[in-house]
């Protein structure tokens, strides 16, 4: 679509392109059609009709039905254009855009996302018996952001999380919880513990009914009466727990136990959520659902949450986190933005899984731009110059008939520090 054309020309051009697409044999252009309606329908009912038409077309598999859907789309397209012309759509669309912009600006201005929820400076913790020492480390957690803590077992992840959660006393450093109204030299740890949500790795069984436990949790956080009912119903539905609400704790799978624990943590809308190894023992689907929910709920506009989460699932965490912390033997190897590792490095690093031996692989990679190849457990680590990105490298691998069973670009990932 031309960028500087008039709205009238825009609708003509867009309609023409859409008609051509509908005329072409094949599926129904649902996305383009609903986008057209979204942009040009003056009457919201017409816009919604376009969506419902898309819904009908999506659930139908028969070609005869597809043809009907295409005809209906053309009819609706004509109605949208007619309505647009009759009501001087270009002016209304422009006014609507201005109104929306004003609201957006206001919303943006009032957003609390990015405010500091927790700030720790020079945090240390030493255990006399094991001689293990965490830190010193600085950590800032912001509303709306997820921070992932990774590292091998017994390298300080749980210690850090428990300190932030107020479960463990630190030795040195300062902790501030602006989102909880706590900070300075005298922190009320009891108040901190009560004001943030902590989901430990080992979940304690719920004794009563799941429903009553959630109502009780909301009640002790001051949510009472109709509001209590509303909040519990909402969180249960939002996390897809409705069907399981009348079950007993012991009858739940590990995934659902964790989701109920999350419901209990979220029902009172905390500002700070700390989760220790929540992905352990979850199947792939449950992990993905949990991380997606965390991502969506943390970045809420009205109730943004600062989330601190530890896991071994490095790549899964990197997909949802704004910030990563990598601990090795209690020391911070990296703390910073996700995909911010090695940004100043002159080379890239990739992980490759293939059936070839190291010698065969080296042989085939000659002249490909790969500087170094080394074996790392079940995969190979390839180092290239900075200008060889993943697309170019993949192309070169395929050109050399190297079978690729697994490939990952670790150039800016914390994974690079593990290998």
């Amino acid at each position: 679509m031309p960028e500087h054309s008039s709205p009238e020309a825009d609708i003509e051009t867009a309609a023409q392109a859409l008609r051509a697409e509908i005329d072409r044999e094949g599926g129904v252009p649902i996305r383009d059609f609903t986008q057209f309606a979204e942009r040009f329908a003056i009457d919201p009912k017409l816009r919604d009709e376009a969506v419902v038409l898309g819904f009908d077309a999506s659930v139908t598999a028969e070609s005869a039905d597809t043809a009907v859907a295409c005809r209906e789309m053309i009819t609706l397209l004509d109605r949208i254009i007619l309505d647009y012309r009759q009501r001087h759509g270009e002016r209304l669309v422009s006014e609507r855009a201005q109104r929306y912009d004003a609201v957006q600006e206001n919303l943006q201005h009032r957003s609390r996302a990015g405010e500091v929820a927790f700030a720790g400076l020079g945090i240390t913790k030493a255990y006399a018996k094991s001689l293990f020492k965490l830190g010193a480390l600085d950590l800032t957690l912001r509303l709306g952001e997820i921070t992932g803590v990774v590292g091998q077992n017994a390298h300080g992840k749980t210690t850090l999380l428990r300190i932030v959660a107020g479960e463990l006393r630190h030795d040195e450093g300062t902790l501030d919880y602006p989102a909880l109204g706590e900070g300075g030299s005298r922190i009320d740890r009891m108040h901190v513990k009560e004001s943030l949500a902590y989901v430990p790795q080992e979940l304690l069984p719920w004794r009563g009914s799941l429903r009553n436990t959630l109502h009780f949790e909301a009640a002790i956080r001051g949510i009472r009466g109709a509001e209590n009912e509303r909040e519990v119903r909402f969180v249960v539905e939002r996390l897809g727990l409705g069907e399981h609400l009348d079950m007993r704790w012991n009858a739940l799978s590990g995934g659902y136990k964790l989701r109920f624990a999350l419901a209990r943590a979220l029902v009172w809308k905390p500002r700070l959520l700390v989760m220790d190894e929540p992905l352990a023992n979850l199947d792939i689907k449950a992990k993905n659902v949990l991380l997606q929910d965390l991502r969506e709920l943390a970045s809420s506009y009205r109730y943004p949450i600062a989330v601190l989460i530890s896991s071994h699932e490095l790549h899964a965490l990197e997909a949802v986190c704004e910030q990563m912390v990598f601990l090795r033997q209690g020391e911070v190897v990296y703390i910073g933005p996700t995909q911010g590792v090695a940004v100043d490095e002159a080379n890239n690093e990739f992980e490759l899984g293939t059936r070839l031996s190291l010698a065969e692989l080296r042989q085939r990679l000659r002249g490909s731009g790969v500087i170094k190849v080394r074996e790392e457990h079940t995969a190979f680590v390839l180092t290239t110059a900075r200008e060889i990105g993943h697309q170019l490298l993949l192309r070169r691998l395929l050109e050399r008939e190297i079978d690729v069973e697994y490939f990952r670009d670790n150039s800016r990932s914390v994974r690079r520090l593990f290998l």
Partner: protein
Amino acid sequence: MNGASDFAQRSSEVRHLVATADLPSAIRKTMDLVRDFSGREHLDEVTVVSMTFCEIECGRRRDELNFEAAMQEKKKIARQLLGLVGEVEIHLVEVGHA
């Protein structure tokens, strides 16, 4: 622009999910949209929509509802979601903020 405050983008995303018949995601996104930008009435309504959808899915699994009947019910849900999102938009534009 912070993604969460981009209500136009978010409502548009819900419409797209409805159009592609991904109702579970559409419901989830509508719940978040309502919670962020509207009040109790809409919160109750979207919760009921979610519960109804869950009942339809259960009915299908237990063979208590045939495909056509389930589709009819889901289409009602689709319309309800669109109505809700439209009302939230109107509410936002009229009030000027969440």
